[in-house]
């Protein structure tokens, strides 16, 4: 088809508001636009003047779905600024909460947002009647992720008990062991999820691209990493994140884009899988193989498959973290913090990719500078490049199908447009 005009107002089944516009004339792309219509919220302005202990509880409100992720990056940044060390117990409790959030977010994306496309329906609602067992399984799995967060940190959305230095109240061993049993019992559901995915076909599309993720030599980096690793530009120390994450105003768009030294790049589950495959558990690698995913995969639609692989990893991580916590014996910890001036960066691999928080505080603990870089902001430029490569490959299809493919591509990245701290209107022309 040589003439195509697509205008998708408010892409559905993504977090936040965005439009896709495509105009093709005589087989040539005249306009291709992913416009972010989310209202900016200006967190980086109103964080100034707030206190060190408020940063995590304010910034978790950037996003409901990755609230624990924002909390985690925020706490690491503030602890680095204040020179606070955390105990093994606090680290394990945070990693356990983080695994819970990763599970709930990935299940939400795979079952509620992506599966309807693969099963040819407009949403999860028709599946309640046509695939009741799948819907019940999705609810069960997602509930477990949420309950992990509730047990350890009070709730999933805007966790109460995640604070600088320690948890003000630690969970009971018996409650953790009950979660452990549910994690063990969820393994058959995971296998059923894999079996279901094996019957569904994802679009075939590949493009040479750069992947970036945190890397840790001894663990599959989620809550924390040791360095920022790129498949094209190598390693960057986390405090030097601006070397990798370069914000610039694109001349054609009046918009801030993010790119590395060599161009746009992808963050998220697929980037993590490609970079940190060696740190995955054997069970996770087996599931990846069963689903036809191997490093390095250049198909962004496989991001959802990488998320399912991470669900296996997080389920087994959760069991291990609980065992270690119960073995250590849980105890209340001192929350005293010595406030002093400083600057710190924190980074986590939240469900949608690498999240950076940076704060500077004065000697009274008042925030005087901050910078927040979210995963979706990093992915936007890469999605543009994907669209430009994908459109010519599918131009012969009916217009509805082209529109659906573009929406599915945006959805594959699991964008979180609500995290609008640095999202400017992006116009690709």
């Amino acid at each position: 088809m040589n003439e195509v005009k697509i205008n998708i107002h408010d892409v559905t089944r993504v977090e936040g508001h965005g439009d896709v516009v495509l105009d093709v004339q005589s087989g040539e792309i005249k306009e291709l636009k992913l416009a972010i219509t989310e209202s900016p919220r200006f967190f980086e302005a109103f964080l100034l003047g707030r206190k060190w202990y408020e940063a995590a509880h304010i910034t978790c409100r950037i996003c409901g779905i990755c609230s624990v992720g924002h909390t985690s990056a925020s706490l690491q940044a503030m602890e680095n600024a204040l020179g606070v060390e955390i105990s093994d117990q606090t680290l394990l409790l945070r990693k356990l909460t983080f695994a819970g959030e990763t599970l709930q977010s990935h299940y939400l994306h795979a079952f509620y947002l992506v599966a309807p496309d693969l099963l040819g329906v407009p949403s999860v609602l028709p599946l309640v009647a046509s695939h009741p067992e799948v819907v019940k399984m999705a609810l069960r799995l997602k509930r477990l992720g949420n309950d992990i967060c509730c047990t350890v940190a009070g709730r999933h959305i805007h966790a109460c008990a995640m604070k600088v230095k320690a948890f003000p109240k630690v969970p009971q061993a018996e409650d953790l062991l009950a979660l452990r049993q549910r994690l063990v019992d969820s393994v058959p559901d995971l296998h059923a999820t894999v079996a279901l995915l094996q019957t569904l076909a994802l679009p075939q599309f590949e493009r040479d691209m750069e992947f970036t993720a945190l890397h840790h030599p001894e663990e599959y980096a989620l809550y924390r990493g040791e360095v920022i690793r790129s498949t094209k530009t190598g390693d960057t120390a986390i405090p030097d994140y601006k070397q990798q994450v370069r914000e610039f105003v694109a001349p054609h768009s009046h918009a801030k884009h993010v790119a590395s030294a060599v161009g746009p790049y992808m963050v998220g589950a697929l980037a993590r899988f490609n970079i940190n495959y060696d740190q995955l558990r054997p069970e996770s690698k087996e599931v990846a193989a069963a689903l036809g995913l191997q490093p390095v995969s250049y198909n962004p639609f496989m991001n959802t498959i990488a998320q399912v692989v991470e669900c296996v990893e997080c389920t087994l991580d959760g069991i291990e973290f609980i065992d270690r916590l119960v073995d250590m014996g849980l105890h209340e910890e001192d929350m005293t913090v010595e406030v002093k001036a400083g600057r710190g960066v924190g980074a986590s691999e939240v469900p949608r990719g690498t999240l950076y928080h940076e704060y500077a505080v004065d000697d009274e603990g008042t925030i005087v500078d901050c910078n927040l870089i979210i995963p979706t902001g990093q992915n936007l430029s890469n999605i543009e490049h994907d669209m430009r490569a994908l459109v010519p490959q599918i131009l012969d299809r009916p217009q509805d199908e082209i529109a659906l493919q573009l929406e599915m591509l945006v959805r594959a990245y699991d964008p979180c447009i609500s995290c609008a701290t640095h999202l400017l209107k992006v116009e690709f022309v």
Partner: protein
Amino acid sequence: MKPRVGMFAFTCCEGCGLAVIECENELLDVLSLIDLVEWREGLSEKANPPELEIALVEGSISTHADEQKLKAIRERAKVLVALGACAHTGGLNALKNRYGMNQVKQMVYGEAGAQFDTIPARPLSAVVPVDLFLPGCPIDRTEFLSVVRDVALGKAPRLPDYPLCVECKKKENVCVFFQGRFCMGPVVRAGCGAICPTHGDGCEACRGLVSHPNEQAHKETLAEHGLKVDEVLMHFNMFNSYQEDQPA
């Protein structure tokens, strides 16, 4: 006939809509009581016809486009429910109102910020009449379900109008003031089961104040526990700055 329900999000984290979806154990029951016809975050379907019995709306109003969209939703819906702090009190978003709009745009985006349409953040009720509000950041799942049950039974839902301390005492929590932390519980509307104090943290007043709070006594209590005046005020304004900034 099941009531036709739509869910909508404005300036917010979309966590209250997510909290509804996080009622996993009860979700299929809730869906059997209602006809969910529109929800951009989760469904590709659009309500047809557009009329709704109930519109659940989260987020505050912070652009001219938000304002127009909310008015259109109000016209479509018999009952409009404000979900969560952003919709109910303006929430955290209203903290930007203390700066000039050009100033916040410059602070976060530099020169490129000029293109944004941003106006001081407001709760829904500052733009259209709101029939019911569910407070909290995020809303409380149990409270949401009890409101759904009331509506299904044809009962008018009633929110607690007593301080959070009542619920906290019922839970036999040790008062967080005695643990050297501070709390907004004495002046804040109950209904969340005192979730933050139960998990060792002080209440941050996300549910707004009770109808007749003794603010002065509470400020004195906070000051007694070693907070400076500006820190005391911060505790009041984190979620309620819009109300504080209104002329008396």
